[in-house]
């Protein structure tokens, strides 16, 4: 962990990301100091998942540089955890919940090394903190979507990684589970780990140390309290709104003028 403190958890310079025939976001420059959380905020297709996948080495950068814990993406599988937005077929497999979380240890165990009691302790601790230890012996396919999501988050935590990459991890969670997950994340970062979370939720971003607003370009990057303003959110989403008497009051949108003092309408 001490080595991780000396270099940024994640950084990019002149980075372009996307797929073979399509640039999604270009000109990305940022640095996330270790022990911090970064929220990637934007609407669908804004580039959040593409950036996370590039950091997780699932996509190659199109140009520029990206550095994960001081090295190229994929250099340290055991030090990076990734939870994607979709688990394609995992829930149909004959697996118990604890078997899913145990998979987190494969990156450090490799092909043949036997799991030690320490591995099992980490697995059970991750399940306990996510409140799913009582589900350990149950078949994954019998669990609800929210229970599965908590198990997947426990899996990401059980990696013991220095950098945790999470793609909309709270989308399937009820408010109580959401609080549990946020507490787990805060605790992880307090112990020196870093996390990058893709989210639509501005409130979740406000709880992170840093925020990057994406709209197929970097709209803003910096400390969350500085970045999350009505003006930047307007540029990101094309709309700024707040809850009002059980509904949503649109304060401003790109083509209208029904604005209620956007300077004071941060999250």
């Amino acid at each position, binding site marked *: 962990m001490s080595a991780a403190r000396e270099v940024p958890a994640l950084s990019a310079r002149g980075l372009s990301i996307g797929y073979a025939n399509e640039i999604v976001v270009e000109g990305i420059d940022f640095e996330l100091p270790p022990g911090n959380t970064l929220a990637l905020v934007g609407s669908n297709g804004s580039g959040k998942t593409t950036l996370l996948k590039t950091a*997780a080495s699932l996509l190659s950068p199109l140009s520029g540089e990206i550095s994960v814990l001081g090295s190229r993406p994929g250099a340290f599988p055991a030090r990076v955890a990734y939870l994607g937005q979709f688990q394609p077929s995992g829930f149909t497999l*004959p697996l118990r919940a604890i078997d899913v979380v145990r998979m987190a240890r494969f990156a450090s165990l490799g*092909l*043949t090394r036997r799991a030690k009691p320490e591995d099992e302790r980490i697995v059970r601790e991750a399940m306990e903190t996510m409140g799913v230890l009582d589900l350990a012996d149950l078949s994954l396919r019998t669990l609800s979507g929210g229970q599965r999501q908590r198990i997947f988050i426990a899996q990401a935590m059980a990696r013991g990684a220095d950098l945790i990459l999470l793609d909309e991890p709270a989308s399937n969670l009820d408010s109580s589970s959401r609080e549990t997950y946020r507490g787990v994340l805060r605790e992880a970062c307090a112990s020196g780990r870093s996390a990058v979370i893709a989210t639509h939720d501005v409130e979740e971003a406000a709880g992170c140390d840093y925020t990057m607003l994406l709209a197929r370009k970097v709209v803003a990057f910096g400390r969350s309290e500085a970045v999350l303003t009505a003006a930047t959110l307007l540029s990101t989403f094309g709309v700024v709104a707040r809850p009002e008497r059980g509904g949503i009051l649109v304060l401003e949108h790109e083509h209208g003028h029904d604005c209620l003092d956007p300077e004071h309408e941060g999250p």
Partner: protein
Amino acid sequence: MIDVFVAPFSSNAFMGNALLAGLLVSLACGIVGSFVVLRGLAFIGDALAHGVLPGVAVAVLLGLPGMLGAAAGSLAMIAGISLVTKKSTLSSDTAIGLLFVGMLALGVAIVSRSRAFSGDLVRILFGEILGISGAEILIQAGATVAIAATAFLCYRPFLLLCFNPEQADVSGFPSRLYHAIMLALIALTVVVSFRTVGTLLVFGMLLAPAATAALFARKISVMIALSSLVGAASVYLGLLASYHFDLAAGASVTLVATIVFFAALAASRLSPLSGGAR
């Protein structure tokens, strides 16, 4: 009474060899078939099982071992599927389907050009479990050991691949590499099993026991063991039925495996253990 169950194998060398070869097939198919079922690779398994036909046909024409032709046919299938999926935006299903019908048609075309295939074609498609030689059993035993050792060594990446290929990649196990290894294991199983149960029926042995095991297993290691056991029981019961009722041996084995699946499916709907065996 016990003679009904034991004598066919103890008093008849052909049946003894058939049982041994069949048990080896059930072990190989139990391991590989579990991953075929878990990863939804049934279509490519079917395509590989049928796609070896032109390879075997050419080998027979040239007087080469059929297994060599089957191996060449499998390689051609896998290379063709990879080429189509890489060079186009078509899904792998489409690529598999194209290669599947293309190779099958080529096999039938080759066979139709020669009268020499009248007996061989039946053996290629349905196997000749009662005509298995000691040397062929040895080859099959070697291949089964190689399949079991590879599956044991690659168990973690295979598990991740079944769960989510992205998790395999981020855990340091390249999903493309381990997918290719998995395909190679399917091909090897088809190639070494086709003499025993034939190219058509090997697919049944890949799928039916593993599908039966999937109904009850809650752990993949248990599923593999259960699948091999179901396969072994199907081989024994199939050969026994074939001996006593004068049925085609390879077809009897696969038929029993399929009947066992449907019986297990019915039982799993009634049993509280459904999806629960550890």
